[in-house]
């Protein structure tokens, strides 16, 4: 076994891992190592060739490769080290050891003072949503088709139907059209668009691609290759209405039906996982239930903007470096964050309160859209912070910030209530 040691080991060289690496290196100057399974760094952004990244973080509109490139360049300049083509197979978090397999070194054990989980997420597949019909070739997740088309120069089909109106699905509808394919339909189960309006306008409307809301695929047809799909309108219980069934002849189906945080390693290490986000539970330092293991980005919870991933990952990098140097504030008590009215989950899930007071931001998603609301963070009857919002939407992450010095109880509740109706 080949052995390496470092101060901070980061699993994953995508936007989360790169931002964390930059921050860890800046904080400590110690040895920071990024372990990446692909042959190059940048993660999924390498195939996201479209613009729309960086508007909040860099205040300019960048494409995915440009956004990743900025962090990759900074990491290299600072002296962050990379272990590419290396798949992490195991983590012994008590010993601080990560085991990976590398083409050059074979089995490699990396021992680090702190570990950052930055594995991102993967796409839900046909098996996850159980579409009826035969099992021919030609059914792809939108992201794997994106990789084939944008990085490997492999066109995946000519007549395409897309299931799911998430941003990746709509962006692939435009991409396939630009490359000469005909996108015949984008089919969405819900009665509203899953992705951004901007993407509907620029990816679907610009190319006259029809969008079917409240519809779903009822059957895939084809023996060796996809020959067509049946799809139908759904009722209020999302059940297909048989009389509305239609048939489209096509050779390819792309699925854009959600993402799952990739947490096999986290589960194996028995780190506490939230049943709502499917990612590790963290405190404001992005520290998991295992004190030397930190986590950031889509492995914690699925983000809609990479800019938010960077902000969160910079914290993980900074505090993981502090842990490695033994300068992370000592916990006096742990406070639980509770999702109140119209809040689906809170991230971080807990706050580590130390004698030193500090600012903490809690990120969350609402359960349902609402207007003219007030976001309130409270400790019992005491309001820690509140702010007004004209509009909230499950698709967009919300945030509230307050000072840990004001917390006297053992929990903080965040709620989103109609203005004037707060208790």
């Amino acid at each position, binding site marked *: 076994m080949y052995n390496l040691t470092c101060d901070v080991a980061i699993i994953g060289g995508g936007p989360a891992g790169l931002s964390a690496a930059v921050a860890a290196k800046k904080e400590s100057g110690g040895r920071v190592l990024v372990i990446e399974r692909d042959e190059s760094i940048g993660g999924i952004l390498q195939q996201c060739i479209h613009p729309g990244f960086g508007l909040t973080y860099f205040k300019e509109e960048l*494409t995915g490769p440009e956004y990743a*490139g900025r962090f990759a360049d900074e990491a290299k300049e600072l002296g962050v080290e990379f272990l590419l083509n290396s798949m992490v197979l195991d983590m012994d978090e008590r010993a601080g050891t990560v085991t990976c397999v590398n083409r050059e070194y074979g089995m490699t054990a990396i021992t680090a003072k702190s570990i950052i989980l930055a594995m991102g997420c993967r796409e839900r597949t046909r098996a996850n949503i159980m579409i009826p019909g035969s099992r021919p070739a030609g059914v792809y997740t939108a992201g794997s088709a994106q990789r084939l088309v*944008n990085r490997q120069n492999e066109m995946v089909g000519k007549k395409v139907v897309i299931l799911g109106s998430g941003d990746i699905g709509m962006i692939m509808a435009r991409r396939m059209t630009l*490359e000469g394919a005909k996108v015949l339909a984008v089919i969405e189960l819900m009665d509203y668009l899953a992705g951004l309006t901007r993407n509907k306008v620029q990816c679907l409307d610009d190319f006259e691609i029809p969008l079917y809301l409240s519809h779903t695929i009822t059957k895939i047809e084809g023996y060796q290759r996809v020959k067509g799909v049946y799809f139908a309108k759904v009722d209020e219980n999302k059940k297909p209405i048989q009389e509305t069934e239609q048939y489209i002849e096509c050779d390819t189906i792309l699925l854009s039906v959600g993402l799952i945080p990739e947490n096999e390693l986290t589960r194996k290490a028995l780190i506490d996982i939230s049943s709502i986000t499917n990612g590790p539970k963290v405190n404001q330092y992005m520290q998991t239930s295992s004190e030397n293991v930190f986590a950031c980005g889509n492995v914690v919870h699925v983000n809609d903007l990479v800019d938010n991933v960077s902000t969160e990952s910079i914290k993980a990098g900074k505090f993981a470096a502090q842990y490695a140097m033994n300068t992370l504030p000592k916990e006096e008590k742990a406070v639980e964050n509770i999702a109140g009215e119209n809040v689906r989950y809170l991230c971080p899930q807990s706050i580590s309160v130390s004698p030193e007071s500090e600012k903490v931001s809690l990120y969350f998603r609402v359960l349902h859209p609402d207007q003219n609301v007030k976001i309130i963070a409270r400790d019992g009857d005491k309001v820690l912070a509140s702010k007004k919002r004209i509009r909230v939407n499950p698709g967009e992450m919300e945030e509230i910030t307050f000072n840990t010095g004001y917390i006297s109880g053992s929990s903080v509740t965040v709620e989103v209530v109609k203005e004037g109706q707060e208790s």
Partner: protein
Amino acid sequence: MKKEIICTVCPIGCHIAVEGEGDNIISMEGYGCKRGEQYAHAEFAHPVRILTTTVKTDSEKTPLIPVRSDKPVPKEKIMDCMAEIRKCLAKAPVGVYDILIEDVCDTGVNIVATGAVK
């Protein structure tokens, strides 16, 4: 000419009804703010888009390089630009922001690399 424009300035997505001819706008209804009004005007008179795609390279390891237009191109020229870009073969090495096609389809816009090939 009448056109309904969905505003993309913010997530509200106002539906704006515009009537007129080119820059000469007779009526506009449904916008929620000043920026929306400006967006609808530009989108009605001269819709433009940033075009992103890929260009083939002569590198075996990196068969494609991501590219973008350095300025927005007129919407109606997008498919013409794609046809032009398809003919291009980038010779390695290519650096980020190297110009691969100058003045694509007489638009005054350059196609530049957004990634690198060694």
